[in-house]
């Protein structure tokens, strides 16, 4: 990863130690995951032990230490989505992509993740792909939904 970008992010927060979490979030937003070199750089410049950076990166579930796919397929597992069938939708997405929750397809195209709740409960079961919300998804619609991202030419609206 381009270390200048890491430096710029740290600079934005004035090397403020309390912004450690925010710095890591911004790096992940930039890179899609937290590369080890970037974490080491953060520790060095912000003058905190690497163990502390590492403990934050592993404690909070929004961080990934592995490269993630081009499209992040996030299935909401909040209670409202759960009672409306989210586990079945997750199973179907896993079946369709041939990977388990938390994994990335070998072509680095898709990563499956779950989230505890995004607060769009009226639309449950809900799948968020990148920043697009797909609401009221039933298992029979999963294939079609993923299709839009497999063949970007069809990706309209």
């Amino acid at each position: 990863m381009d270390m200048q970008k890491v430096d710029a992010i740290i600079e934005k927060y004035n090397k403020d130690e309390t912004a450690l979490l925010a710095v890591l979030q911004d790096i992940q937003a930039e890179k899609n995951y937290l590369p080890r070199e970037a974490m080491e750089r953060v520790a060095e410049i912000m003058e905190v032990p690497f163990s502390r950076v590492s403990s934050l990166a592993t404690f909070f579930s929004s961080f990934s230490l592995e490269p993630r796919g081009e499209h992040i397929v996030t299935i909401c597992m909040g209670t409202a989505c759960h009672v409306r069938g989210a586990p079945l939708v997750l199973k179907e997405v896993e079946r369709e992509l041939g990977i388990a929750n938390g994994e990335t397809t070998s072509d680095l195209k898709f990563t499956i993740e779950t989230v505890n709740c995004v607060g769009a409960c009226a639309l449950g079961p809900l799948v968020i792909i990148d920043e697009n919300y797909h609401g009221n998804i039933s298992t029979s619609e999963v294939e079609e939904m993923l299709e839009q991202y497999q063949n970007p030419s069809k990706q309209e609206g």
Partner: protein
Amino acid sequence: MVKVNSPKALEEIIQKKKKESGKEGTYISICGGTGCIASGGNGVLEAFQEVIADDPDVKLVRTGCHGFCERGPLVVIQPQGILYQKVKPGDAADIYEKTIKNGEIIKKHLYRDQKKQAYEKEADVPFYKFQKRIVFKMNGHIDPEKIDDYLAMDGYSALSKVLTSMKPDQIIDTVIKSGLRGRGGGGFPAGIKWKSTKAATGDKKYVLCNADEGDPGAFMDRSIMEGNPHSVIEGMLIGAYAIGSDEGYIYIRNEYPLAIKRLKVALEQAREYGFLGKNILGTDFSFDIKINRGGGAFVCGESTALMLSIEGKVGRPRTKYIHTADSGLWDKPTNLNNVETWANIPHIFNKGVDWFTSIGTGDVSEHPWGGSKGTKIFSLVGKVNNTGLVEVPFGITLRDIIFKIGGGIKNSKKGRKFKAVQTGGPSGGCIPEKHLDEPVDFDGLTKMGSMMGSGGMIVMDDHTCLVEVARYFVDFLKDESCGKCTPCREGLRRMSQILNRIVVGEGKEGDIELLEKLASAMEISSLCALGQTAAYPVLSTIKYFREEYERHIKDGYCDGKQCTELIRYNIDEDACTGCSICAKKCPTKAISGELKKTYRIDQSECVRCGVCFNVCNFNAVEILSGSEIKEKMGE
């Protein structure tokens, strides 16, 4: 922008903004909450912008969440208050021509209830009619990214009032007398908290807002921040002045990007006017707020974990024999309240204690624990017709919320019936039908074996398995347990193992008793509330639905017909018309047959996703469990 440097200047600017707001005339309010945006709200907004571009008499307001997320995108034509639901960008021109120019109601956009009765006005729709919107009052009217809209509705006048006419102790006394209890879950009286923090030794004090709304199924705090961020900021300002703090933080979930954006805009605009910063309204009081984003850890909603997280550390709770009011953020006296609690504060000072205490239950004149005053916002979700956010006075019954406001159970025509309602988030409980007529308040819900929590209300029908629900919450908490204390870490693991074997039909005799034992050990010995209350979903479901647990264990029978290992989908040959819709929709192609004859499910291919059951128009798909499987299918 001119700094508002005195209460008089504020009064002048409020009057000016009222005149400028143009709200006397026609304006179109378009919901810009996360739910409506996800259903295509931005496109609707753009379409209306285009349509009214040449009409100076019509204003457009992109507001925060209106609450009726199920029916989004929502458009309300003011001042008449006509509600159009599920509006599409293509409808904009028609709505403008017919309704705005000619006053004609377009029937197809109106909300219709279960009996197909149409409603023209938002205020008459049962979903809104039985609510009491105080905190949500401005949502739907103001643009959250325009401080002028907030000012035009007397924004920051409560701040001005307390700064000019009240001493800190009087302010705290008012909050205590109002009986305002924490809306984040604990229900601790806000005024008492303020008093302790004010009394704590030290010059530097912090005022925090807990916006780490981690309870799955609850999103009222998000909607307050997205719809009316200044009400939270004004509440925090009043609290900071009373407590003697000059620095505040809002700790917010990173999963709420829109709320973060709108808060940032609001903080910036408040600073420009001088409502944040040094010498606010020309007084000696100075205060500013920073935003801190969470990292997706449920436990960080716990006060000490939240504070550690703001310090840039891992959020693991500590014991609280020293209260955070004495030693919190960076070991300084710290006051933490939830978003909804803060948003109530300006209203209490604008309208007074008598008004506030007239709403709700009990008597708080002696002490603030005497009742539950004001309103509470619930997120009414799950198997209910009108999903959304509802603000109701304490004391309303669960039945009124679910059936009057919520419009009853989804798919009741297909025979679905109410089974339980889950309140209080992962630490809450499931309440059965027999308690539906009891009043909802802090103490009432506790008595029913659940809790208020942050206000999630998840409705479950007879096709919900309560054992599976308990498993869901225990697995959720198992993943979210920080691991610091043994009872919570290990207790949840063992509970999860037991529940996971019960739902696949491998439960053993004695499992229920073992769950109860583990639950009581965790309640007594866990370090923080996460572990102490983690067993509530298990205990409440055992209390009210023990026979369901027993049937899972003894008969391999799932009452909710939900535990996939214990059920089989079967097509009733007599009822099947051979329409083939199930075969078309089946994701694994497990259904085969001949058109106009009957279809069959190949059990070895079936993943039990339930699509066939949902799409069948002739109730020909049945779900079998336990001995039914043998009887009907000979398996």
